[in-house]
């Protein structure tokens, strides 16, 4: 989230698209309802009418996988009707930047495409520079090559009738949503966008979110209270896990993992590649070196490039994301798998194929609260022949959240410490303990090795106590970082050094543990202004509650609205002050030419309406991998930058055989793959059966009655479920035809107290062109009554 949960109450309009917080983030409604009680309006955009839709003032239906068309139409409406926040757009975004003549867009394709690699040469979309290397700008936004004009032209194709022909939204509703949301472009108003996996789990997932960001920048909704682009994270600590480098190409603090490419042969070469010339990221070498000091301590020296060569390297150009790992498993390239609370047999795309791949492993270690469908994939119950599977499976019982101590970071970036409530049952252990015990034993095993390949393990410092129970306080202190000589805690990430004199396990958390107080333990719920609760826990970075809060003030440093003060320039004191920690140089005043550059992480300090990611600098609608119609916006059907994996994992269904659009989701009552909730009686009884939601119209066509047992099939497999015939699903009325759709929860499997068919037996093994997140949310299927 750019903002945070409590801040939702300050919104004038909330648009929930690609999320269903009433069901998946119920506590959010505590804050959303406060906004509504003050006259705020709630818009719910979803393929189906959810519990969130019931709470909303306006419900708009869209076909799964058409978010860019939907938002693109809103952007066009706002530009055509000049409803954007003019001063904000001109001064705070890159709208005025002039783009190189090599940029072009024609029939769904941007310039610079390499058909063989399915990738673009992004240099074709660069900004034009003068001789001194400064970006050329047109503050009047009239130059036909400036971002504003290019964007306007690009989205002019997203006229209302074309859009609703693709999304299936009722025209009157769509116009109502455009008008209501565009009202937040008025100076002083705030609109927020809430999204989750409904936005991201598409082959165009990243561009979906880009389209939300563009909309918000146009309306001046970033940096202000009640605004923002707010990702509702799917688990209590999924924010924390990505912060700490969970993704294969990240190290902690959103920095890159080195590769085997020539540029990365030396630490300096690697730093040169990953460090931009402008923006706050110029400090990256300080953060990277400090991180390696936390890994290798005194074994990281200037002489050995701070241990850079101990770091594992990615094979250049190779993708190690979730689906590609299963591809590799399928090809028998992976021997072992460590799973922490992960259940791909239920949660993975094309789960049937992923389960098959598991049997190619030599060993698997599953760490979980319960025996899951994955750790028991070899059992008869799973439909497997145990004698033919050679994988050795080791199960380690894990502690539940109440049985251990540590912090979780919520969607609003608040790092909140939690204490152990009860002792773990039996031999179960906390994940941290398990990793600690493993590391201690590995260190011991390699202690006397002289093999150069073992050096990283030998160089690794692991000073978290001498027992099998780690001293978590030492872990916390190291995450924050300290001076290597004095061992004094570092106060802020601005104090980190690239000369090896400081360490910090994760620079974005640097500051949460200054001296002797772990600030994530703070529980002072005094609201000192705008519900920011600055003394409750700790928000990264630097305890800031709203990112880019410089943009909450106008060009002179005054709040756009008196009722929405973030930070303001105090001329008397010569510093930024207000209800939040400034996301800006605190004493940078109006005399500084960069006084009006609020987006400090970006080169140039401007919000990126135009930003190069893999499939282009502006979002463009492409159809999902499996889709019911040809693309109305161009002759390009699928996102041209999507990469394909192992062919056998990747079966594609055709609309002639599978005419129904399907999507998957979660319910309030169950959690992820259901391992925890289907094993808990009081939750299990609330939703004890796998069901598929279908419209009355489709039910009639297929001769299906409510409560009938049905079979759902896709190109990947089929599952059994109960039919839930409901008015909440309505067929999509698209340009040339009416298309049916169904939806189903993905919580079920064959383990636990309540069991049922796994929806992911049906989902495709293809993902987004940037993140490779699987396209769980839009695919094709068919339904029939079970005989």
């Amino acid at each position, binding site marked *: 989230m750019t903002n945070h949960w409590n801040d939702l109450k300050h919104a004038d309009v909330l648009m929930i698209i690609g999320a269903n917080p009433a069901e998946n983030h119920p506590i959010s409604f505590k804050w959303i309802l406060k906004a509504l009680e003050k006259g705020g309006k709630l818009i719910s955009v979803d393929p189906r009418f959810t519990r969130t839709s019931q709470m909303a003032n306006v419900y708009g239906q869209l076909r799964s996988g058409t978010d860019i068309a939907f938002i693109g139409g809103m952007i066009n409406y706002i530009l055509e009707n000049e409803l954007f926040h003019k001063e904000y757009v001109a001064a705070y975004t890159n709208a005025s930047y002039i783009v190189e003549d090599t940029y072009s867009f024609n029939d769904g394709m941007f310039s610079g495409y390499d058909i063989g690699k399915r990738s673009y040469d992004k240099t074709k979309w660069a900004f034009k520079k003068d001789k001194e290397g400064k970006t050329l700008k047109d503050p009047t936004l009239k130059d036909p090559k400036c971002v504003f004009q290019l964007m306007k032209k690009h989205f002019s194709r997203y006229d209302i009738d074309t859009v609703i022909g693709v999304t299936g939204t009722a025209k009157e509703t769509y116009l109502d949503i455009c008008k209501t949301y565009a009202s937040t472009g008025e100076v002083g108003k705030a609109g927020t966008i809430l999204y989750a996996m409904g936005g991201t789990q598409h082959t165009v997932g990243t561009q979906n979110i880009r389209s939300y960001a563009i909309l918000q920048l146009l309306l001046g909704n970033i940096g202000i209270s009640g605004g923002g682009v707010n990702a509702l994270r799917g688990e209590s600590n999924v924010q924390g896990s990505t912060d700490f480098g969970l993704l294969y190409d990240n190290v902690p603090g959103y920095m890159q993992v080195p590769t085997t490419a020539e540029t990365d042969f030396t630490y300096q070469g690697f730093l040169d590649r990953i460090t931009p010339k402008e923006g706050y990221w110029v400090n990256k070498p300080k953060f990277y070196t400090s991180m390696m000091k936390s890994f290798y301590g005194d074994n990281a020296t200037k002489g050995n490039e701070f241990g850079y060569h101990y770091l594992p390297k990615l094979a250049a150009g190779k993708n190690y994301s979730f689906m590609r790992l299963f591809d590799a498993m399928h090809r028998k390239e992976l021997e072992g798998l460590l799973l922490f609370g992960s259940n791909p047999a239920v949660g993975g795309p094309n789960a049937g194929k992923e389960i098959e791949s598991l049997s190619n492993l030599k060993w698997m270690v599953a760490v979980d609260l319960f025996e899951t469908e994955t750790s028991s994939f070899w059992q008869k119950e799973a439909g497997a022949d145990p004698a033919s599977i050679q994988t050795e499976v080791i199960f380690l019982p894990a502690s539940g959240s109440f049985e251990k101590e540590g912090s979780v970071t919520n969607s609003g970036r608040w790092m909140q410490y939690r204490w152990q409530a009860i002792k773990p049952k039996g031999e179960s252990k906390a994940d941290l303990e398990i990793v600690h015990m493993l590391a201690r034993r590995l260190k011991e095993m390699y202690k006397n090795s002289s093999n150069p390949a073992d050096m990283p393990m030998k160089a690794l410092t692991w000073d978290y106590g001498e027992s099998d129970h780690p001293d978590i306080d030492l872990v916390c202190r190291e995450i924050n970082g300290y001076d290597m000589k004095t061992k004094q805690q570092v106060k802020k990430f601005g104090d980190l050094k690239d000369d090896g004199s400081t360490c910090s396990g994760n620079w974005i958390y640097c500051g949460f543990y200054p001296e002797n107080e772990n600030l994530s333990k703070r529980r002072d719920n005094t609201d000192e202004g705008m519900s920011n609760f600055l003394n409750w826990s700790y928000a990264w970075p630097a305890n800031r509650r709203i990112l880019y809060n410089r943009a909450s003030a106008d060009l002179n440093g005054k709040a756009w609205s008196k009722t929405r003060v973030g930070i303001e320039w105090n001329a008397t004191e010569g510093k930024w002050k207000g209800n939040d920690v400034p996301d800006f140089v605190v004493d940078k005043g109006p005399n500084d030419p960069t006084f009006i550059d609020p987006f400090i992480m970006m080169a140039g300090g401007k919000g990126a309406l135009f930003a190069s990611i893999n499939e282009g600098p502006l979002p463009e609608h492409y159809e999902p991998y499996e889709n019911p119609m040809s693309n109305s916006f161009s002759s390009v059907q699928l996102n041209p930058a999507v990469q394909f994996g192992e062919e056998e994992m990747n079966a594609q269904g055709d609309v002639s055989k599978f005419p129904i659009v399907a999507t998957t989701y979660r319910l309030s009552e169950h959690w992820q793959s259901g391992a925890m909730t289907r094993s808990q*009686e*009081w939750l299990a009884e609330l939703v004890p059966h796998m069901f598929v939601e279908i419209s009355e119209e489709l039910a009639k066509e297929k001769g299906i009655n409510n409560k009938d047992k049905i079979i759902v099939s896709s190109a990947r497999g089929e599952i059994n479920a109960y039919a839930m015939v409901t008015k909440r699903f309505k067929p999509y009325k698209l340009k040339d035809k009416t298309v049916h759709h169904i939806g189903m929860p993905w919580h079920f499997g064959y383990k636990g107290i309540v069991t049922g068919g796994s929806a992911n037996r049906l989902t495709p093994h293809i993902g987004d062109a940037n993140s490779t997140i699987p396209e769980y949310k839009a695919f094709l299927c068919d339904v029939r009554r079970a005989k």
Partner: protein
Amino acid sequence: MAETIKLVDVTKCDGCRACMVSCKNWNDLPSEMEDFHGSYQSHEKITANTWNVLTFNEQERKDGGLDWLFRHSSCLHCTEAACEKACPENAISHTEFGSVVVDYDTCVGCGYCVQACSFDAINLATYIDKNGKEFRKAQKCTQCTDRLEEGLQPACATACHTGAIVYGDKDELLSSAEDRLAQIKERYPNANIYNPQGISGTNTVYILADKPTTYGLPENPKVALSQIVWKDYAQPIGKMMLGATTMAVIGSFIATNLNKKNHSSEGDQSHE
């Protein structure tokens, strides 16, 4: 002590069902896996071991939109409680909080209360004693009287994150309910406060988004005259003259024949 009530504003409910889980948790009630009902609703109705059920009800609005109506349904704790009147053993009574509770030690499991209740809120649980003999006890929501006695809120109110279930001062809450009603009338033209006066009001008051019958609630429930005659006149006299057992048989006859009629003509709306 000021009078207190539980106020359920269904228009604030987002259907999360934390009230159901917290109730089972606090009262240590067993789970009951029911067959698939064709909707999100987990239990067809309140049972002896499921004291509150979130009901889900879909209906098209006049403007072409849709409403998915949720209701936390549980015992209403009637001021004139038919269950109390029907009980031959005086096992059911009002507490100082206005809640209606069953004294399990006194309850003989005759089931008259079950027949008498206009809301299907009380039911018989079956147990087996040490000798393998079955016996029954009437069970229902206690409005968490044991928590109220300790100065806590009912478990469902504590768990409710939207404030759809609140517990507090009767006058304050009834007045806030009127304000809320005015706010929601535009969205829900049929919205009303359900606090039926035919039974002198209830200790769980609802703000409903639509007519009571939409939610399977009787428009104007009353304690049958027969119940009043039975409890307040016949039973005391009869017990003196005929003995308790005979009176129980007569009571059963009255309850089943007169109250059943009331039942079938009201409520029992199908869900979704």
